[in-house]
């Protein structure tokens, strides 16, 4: 297999470009998109590469169509991805719900910009955390990954595909304009160094009869993709294990939705990922994700220099959310702070997790600029005074 970019080598590229390359290395062979700042570079890279690797990259009429095409491609057997930003993400909510309901593996990248509405198209924000987790209507669960560096954008894109395939679910890579546009050193492994996951297919006709049934006892049904003679019927209506619409039977709905939620929540241990820095003896715990975690990391170093016992919890996955982990950290902390580029979103989850064991403060910033380490340090020192 020949790749149209360096593999087994380091390169100096933008986050958006890294996401495109990683997707192709993860086996993505279908991309549908609609131009939008600051995600267009992902689409442009896919457009350049896909025809060369016998994949598809197509510009749809809008973001609703983009995610629809991606779902269609996934059912036709392809690993598929789309990318967008705020306004397009809002449009995708409809079919994101369809993907959850039909248990369709796909990767949706949101390169966050400042909103609401058109907002600040070129500037970063983290205002879509709650929308990523809860944006589509109805009860559901899905997976949301949050890279902070270009290398993480690369690595987490591959992980996003693996999780999507493993759990037959949409996975959101929630990044932002800073990570999307900044250039950093990225090592792209050789394809044979990569561990890639592919969706389970039914192994016999009996299994294929239950495209939405827990036939293996792991909550994830095998996926009878189209064109293999399974004659699968897929619907966004509430359906039974065979996929037959059952729209007024409470127990069918409850069973389906609880399984879709449980396959994510029960596998929290496998999915959740985080990093800690100087956390062991920390009295002040900063919690952050994405680009802001890098400011927070610097702030912790500076606070330590001044003799303040600060530590960092950097979340690489914001959903499923490890409430127990937060409570455990809260038990040993005096104060926790959530630093994020919004008016408080992850903050609410952390507060719930802390469960009153520690006070939780919000270090908020909006307007497009990432928090400087200095402003985080100042805020904490002020509170300590």
């Amino acid at each position: 297999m020949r790749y149209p970019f360096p593999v087994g080598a380091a390169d100096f590229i933008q986050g958006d470009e890294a996401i495109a390359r990683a997707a192709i290395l993860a086996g993505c062979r279908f991309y549908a998109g609609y131009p939008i700042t600051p995600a267009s570079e992902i689409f442009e890279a896919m457009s350049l590469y896909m025809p060369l690797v016998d994949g598809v990259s197509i510009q749809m009429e809008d973001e609703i169509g983009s995610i629809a095409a991606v779902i269609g491609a996934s059912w036709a057997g392809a690993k598929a991805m789309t990318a967008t930003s705020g306004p397009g993400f809002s449009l995708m909510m409809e079919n994101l719900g369809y993907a959850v309901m039909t248990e369709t593996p796909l990767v949706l990248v949101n390169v966050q910009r400042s909103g609401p509405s058109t907002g600040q198209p070129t500037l970063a924000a983290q205002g879509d955390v709650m929308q990523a987790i809860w944006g589509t209507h109805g009860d559901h669960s899905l997976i949301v990954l949050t890279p902070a560096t270009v290398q993480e954008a690369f690595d987490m894109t591959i992980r996003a595909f693996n999780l999507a395939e493993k759990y037959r679910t949409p996975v959101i890579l929630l990044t932002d304009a800073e990570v999307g546009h900044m250039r950093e050193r990225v090592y792209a492994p050789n394809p044979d160094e990569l561990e890639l996951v592919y969706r389970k297919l039914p192994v016999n006709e009996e299994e294929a009869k239950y495209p939405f049934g827990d036939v293996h006892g792991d909550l994830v049904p095998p996926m009878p993709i189209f064109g293999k003679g399974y004659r699968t019927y897929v619907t966004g209506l509430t359906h039974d294990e065979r996929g037959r619409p059952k729209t007024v039977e409470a127990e069918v709905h409850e069973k389906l939705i609880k399984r879709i939620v449980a396959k994510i929540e029960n596998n929290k241990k496998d999915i959740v990922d985080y990093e800690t820095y100087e956390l062991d003896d920390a009295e002040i715990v900063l919690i952050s994700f994405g680009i802001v975690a890098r400011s927070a990391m610097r702030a912790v170093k500076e606070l330590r220099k001044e003799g303040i016992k600060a530590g960092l919890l950097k979340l690489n996955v914001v959903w499923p959310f490890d409430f127990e982990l937060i409570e455990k950290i809260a038990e040993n902390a005096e104060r926790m702070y959530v630093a994020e580029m919004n008016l408080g979103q992850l903050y609410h989850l952390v507060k719930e997790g802390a469960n009153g064991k520690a006070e939780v403060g919000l270090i908020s910033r909006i307007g497009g600029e990432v928090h400087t380490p200095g402003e985080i340090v100042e805020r904490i020192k002020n509170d300590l005074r």
Partner: protein
Amino acid sequence: MRKEVLIGGFGGQGVILASVILGRAAAVYEGLHAVQTQAYGPESRGGASRAEVVISDEPIDYPKALAPDYAILLSQQAYEKYLPLVKKGGFVIVEKDLVPNRNKELEKNFKVFAVPLTEIAEETTGLSLTMNILTLGLLVKLTGIVSEGSIEKAVLDSVPKGTENINLRALKKGFELGEKLLKGEI
């Protein structure tokens, strides 16, 4: 070793490309960590342009310049806006002809090298466009932030096909200029 570089000018001067080449030299050819960021406006062409490169032998936390060690200021506007941000004792390269109004008092805090970069580039290659590459050569020679070999490779990776020789000529002129400045010959 965290080193921060800020380049400020206006659209069309190749500010962004220069920053990308510098980051690439560090990240790809010296195995260092490097982050390049830039300020974006809604316009596709023209307007003010600013880019930053942070280079370090350790993973880089905060990706932007806190107090630049090195600044390249290519317009009056960039000079006024960014000179006060430079770290005390830092190196500042100024495009002499495009920055007519200088703050001599403030400049005392830095090592300032004011050179008619665009004019020299035009004399050297016949193309004023090569000023950004020439300036990179000058920066590398003055600061040793990356090796001459690395920046040369990164330039070759990044410039349009067919312009390699012209750009290399500009880069080497930058090295030469730096050498003379260091020796106090200019």
